[in-house]
């Protein structure tokens, strides 16, 4: 529920259409994240496409945790992480843990980043992607009891840094237009 609905004052009548709109606005971050994750697996026939899924999940969780933390709540993040584990053939719990860590980092950095520009957010995201990649590698190595190759992790972190604007700019535009929480 938007903040202003909890405050006293004049507001539009809660008709069915309006309620649906509030649900849509509230569910938008989670829905776009899940949709983009499923979309990244579509048979495009691209080389190295398997690295796209974790990249998209990471970018969505980071982006929405910064912009709409109330809609990207920890249970939603856990769900995204679980889906990442299942779809990405990771040992169960690895995606969940890395996504929750991303959320936690975004929460910590939120105050600092809210007044900074896109470039700073991007730069910090690159660092976060490297850290999360290393964490992912360590967890997978630990759970499968052998050192998995580190090449894919580096590729994934690089891809995440490169893909950030591709994912974040359309989401930003959507956030400002069709999914603007202030409209509710």
């Amino acid at each position, binding site marked *: 529920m938007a903040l202003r609905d909890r405050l006293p004052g004049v507001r539009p009548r809660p008709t069915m259409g309006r309620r649906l709109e509030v649900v849509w606005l509230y569910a938008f971050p989670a829905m776009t994240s899940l949709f983009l994750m499923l979309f990244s*697996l579509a048979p495009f026939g691209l080389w190295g496409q*398997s690295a796209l899924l974790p990249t998209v999940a990471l970018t969505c969780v980071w982006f929405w945790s910064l912009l709409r933390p109330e809609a990207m709540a920890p*249970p939603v993040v*856990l769900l995204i992480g679980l889906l990442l584990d299942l779809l990405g*053939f990771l040992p169960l*719990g690895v995606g969940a*843990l890395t996504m929750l860590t991303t959320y936690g980092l975004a929460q910590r950095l939120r105050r600092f980043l809210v007044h900074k520009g896109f470039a700073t957010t991007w730069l910090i995201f690159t660092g976060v992607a490297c850290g999360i990649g290393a964490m992912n590698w360590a967890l997978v190595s630990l*759970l499968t009891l052998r050192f998995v190759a580190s090449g894919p992790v580096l590729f994934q972190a690089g891809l995440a840094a490169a893909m950030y604007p591709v994912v974040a700019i359309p989401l930003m535009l959507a956030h400002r237009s069709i999914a603007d929480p202030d409209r509710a």
Partner: protein
Amino acid sequence: MLRPSIQARHAVARLTLPVMFIAAFGLMLVGKVDTVLVERARTLVYDLGAPIYAALAEPLGRINKAVTEVVDLWGLRGENARLREENEHLRRWQSIALTLDAENKRLKTALRWIPDPQASYVTARVVADAGGVYAKAVLLALGPNHGLRKGQIALDERGLVGRITEVGSRSVRVLLITDMNSRVPVVLETSRAHAILAGTNGPLPRLLYWSEGTVPKEGERVVTSAEANAFPANLPVGVVRYSANGNPEVEPDAQLRAIDIVRIFDYGLGGFASPETTARPTAGRR
């Protein structure tokens, strides 16, 4: 409606993240303890997705083909010359092959050779990369009641692709021979020496454990061996290539980078459990 106080709501909000972290660790534990449950959950998720991806495969494939065609137009002249030369070469080989085939048939008749039973196969479309970051596998979309089983063998038109490791009601996962967990018993064709082909997650799997004194030769053909009853004998696998640091690797015959359609063969072989399922109970599962 009864609303909790602001303090209570703050406390709950503050506790959610730690609770979710604990849940994530719980998931990790579940994943370690009950691998069958995890496998079923994965299969379920992919069963739901497979029909959608199968529907998308056709138009996306067409777009892909169009893009490739445009790219190919650039190198058309060079390609043409190369193909002409290759065609010449292959024609010579064709005549040799036809002579040998006729001779082979004559000899088999003379020896009263019992032919191997013809294997039945189904053809399926690859709809998604099902490997994730740390594995090499593909997902096939199929109709319900497809009747495929774990351990059946996937080939493309050129050679061995991999084996079925997970079976759902509408999707099947094929572990590629390049996967880190893949081990294929093979035979080096000229020396008939046995070896194991081990995936590395890279494009070229490695040859291991060949018999002493029969070193794999550069360019030697590698075929499957019937040892361990996991594969039939003599399926084409690839060609030996030595890496820069002197390890024998195999360049797969199958086009594993762009697999579009595979054939799944049922050779009726029983002696197989995928490397990651050796410890699991498989009885009663499709």
